[in-house]
């Protein structure tokens, strides 16, 4: 009994010690999980609506918890400033242009702050920086959209109901289309025509393809060195020659142009009566007197011919003409033996 009583302090000590061990382990586990003993830095974000975010709410970055909400307070007139404790180790990964939004850790889970985005080339966020905020889609927003969709759906359903009633009662074009066999035959024919057209289109497209292929071959050949077009296009010497030729052609054209201008000047002058040729061409009086002169000349030449005939028979010149005939006859006789 005495031994038992002496052991009691030890037993009680062990009992209390184990209880304290449970407490300490719990505190450290909780502290480790809540990152209570991790060095942290505060950064801020200003939201229009935090949607029920609470102090101590988690901060996620790329799906990893990087801190907790330190404080929530009003900012300006009606905005809300959220001060976040971010782990020092995670801060270099959060860039200055990263954005923050309110989310939840499940469909009906607690509200959290989600940090996302940020250009890798941008500097990392620093203590007391303010992150850009983006409005997240809330459940209320989703429900509002869903409600609008429901209204549209109801309207569409009503329209369909009205249309189907009209069709059923034989009203309107659609009803005719559905019920008239003649239209069905026409439609069938139209479809056949369409099919033929499509076949033609197909053929045309095949031809176009061939044309394109030929064009491609042609352009390929053009690109090949060794042919004249390619030489023209690619050879700088040929190009220089062509350029020079073109220049000469240009010069020739200029000369022709000047020549034409001269011709024009001449023709203009020919039309005028202030020069000899113009008078000859244009003056009818000059033409009449020229005609008389020519008639006179013709009559004069006839008379001169008669006079010259008479001279040949004159005794003074008769000997000369006889000698000339004799020489002519001699030259002919010398030629005959050959």
């Amino acid at each position, binding site marked *: 009994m005495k031994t038992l009583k002496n052991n009691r302090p030890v037993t009680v000590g062990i009992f209390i010690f184990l209880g304290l061990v449970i407490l300490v382990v*719990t505190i450290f586990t909780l502290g480790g999980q809540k990152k209570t003993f991790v060095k942290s830095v505060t950064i801020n974000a200003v939201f229009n609506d935090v949607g029920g975010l609470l102090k101590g709410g988690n901060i996620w970055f790329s799906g990893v918890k990087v801190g907790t909400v330190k404080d929530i307070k009003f900012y300006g007139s009606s905005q809300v400033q959220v001060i976040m404790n971010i782990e020092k180790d995670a801060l270099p990964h959060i860039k200055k242009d990263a954005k923050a939004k309110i989310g939840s850790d499940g469909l009906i889970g607690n509200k959290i702050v989600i940090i996302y985005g940020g250009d890798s080339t941008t500097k990392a966020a620093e203590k007391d920086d303010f992150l850009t905020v983006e409005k997240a889609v809330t459940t209320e927003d989703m429900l509002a959209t869903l409600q609008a969709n429901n209204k549209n759906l109801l309207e569409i359903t009503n329209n369909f109901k009205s249309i189907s009633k009209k069709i059923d009662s034989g009203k309107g074009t659609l009803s005719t289309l559905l019920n008239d066999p003649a239209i069905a035959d026409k439609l069938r024919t139209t479809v056949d025509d369409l099919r033929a057209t499509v076949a033609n289109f197909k053929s045309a497209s095949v031809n176009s393809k061939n044309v394109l292929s030929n064009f491609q071959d042609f352009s390929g050949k053009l690109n090949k060195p060794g042919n004249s077009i390619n030489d023209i296009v690619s050879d700088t010497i040929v190009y220089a020659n062509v350029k020079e030729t073109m220049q000469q052609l240009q010069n020739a054209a200029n000369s022709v142009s000047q020549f034409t201008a001269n011709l024009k000047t001449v023709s203009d002058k020919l039309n005028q009566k202030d020069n000899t040729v113009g008078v000859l061409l244009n003056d009818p009086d000059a033409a009449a007197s020229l005609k008389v002169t020519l008639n006179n000349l013709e009559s004069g030449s006839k008379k001169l011919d008669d006079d010259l005939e008479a001279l040949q028979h004159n005794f003074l010149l008769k000997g000369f003409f006889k000698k000339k005939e004799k020489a002519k006859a001699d030259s002919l006789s010398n030629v005959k033996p050959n």
Partner: protein
Amino acid sequence: MAPDLENSEILPEKKALISKKIDSFFTDIYNVYKFIALFFKELFSRPFEWKEVINQCYQVGYKSLALVSLTGFITGVVFTKQSRPSLSTFGASSWLPSLVSIAIIRALAPLVTALIAAGKVGSNMGAELGSMKVTEQIDAMEVSATNPFKFLVVTRILAITFMMPVLILYTGFIGMMGSYLNVHANELTSLTAYFKSAFATISFLDIFSSIFKATMYGFTIGVAGCYQGYHAQNGTQGVGKAANTAVVLSMFLIFVEELVIVQVVNAIR
């Protein structure tokens, strides 16, 4: 020793101020107040009865461990089993650890431990001190120059006040382990994943508020048990009545305190 307490027995004999029962109720409140004041006075006055305190810690704490552990384990298992169908309806069985940890650490561990302690320790104190009172052992101690209040009451109240937080830590731990076994058997959750999920929703405030609650419950059980036993009357019948009243009063006050502390903690949270 403790002469003031003797006067409390004379008071009901006087003429009733309002009515006999109402006067008795307010007299009890006054007497409890004086009892508590005397406890703090004796607590900080020499000599300190350390050996008896350790002895009482052994009786109150260590000897309650088995019962408290078993109760905690069963509580954890049963609460998990009962919560699963509701959570499964929402496809949220993975939230079981969070739910159970909140329930056990915030409420069940302190409350279950306190109720067990009230039943086991409170009745024991009431009966033990009541027996000593009716058999005049307390008077005998006074005659032998021993302070019965310090030796019997202060040591017991101190022991239960100090042991209750330790007991709730055990209860919480064992209850969580019971819950883990059930979750592991059904959802094949690993121990690490279970505790990660369980502690995700628990804060330091939850733990420290539970420890504070346990201290308050321990003090309440100690005061109720010792007061009833110390003021037991009418022989063996009075002993039974003291033990019974000690348990009922302790349990009632525990629930009232739970209600008040939850309000205060939620206001702080």
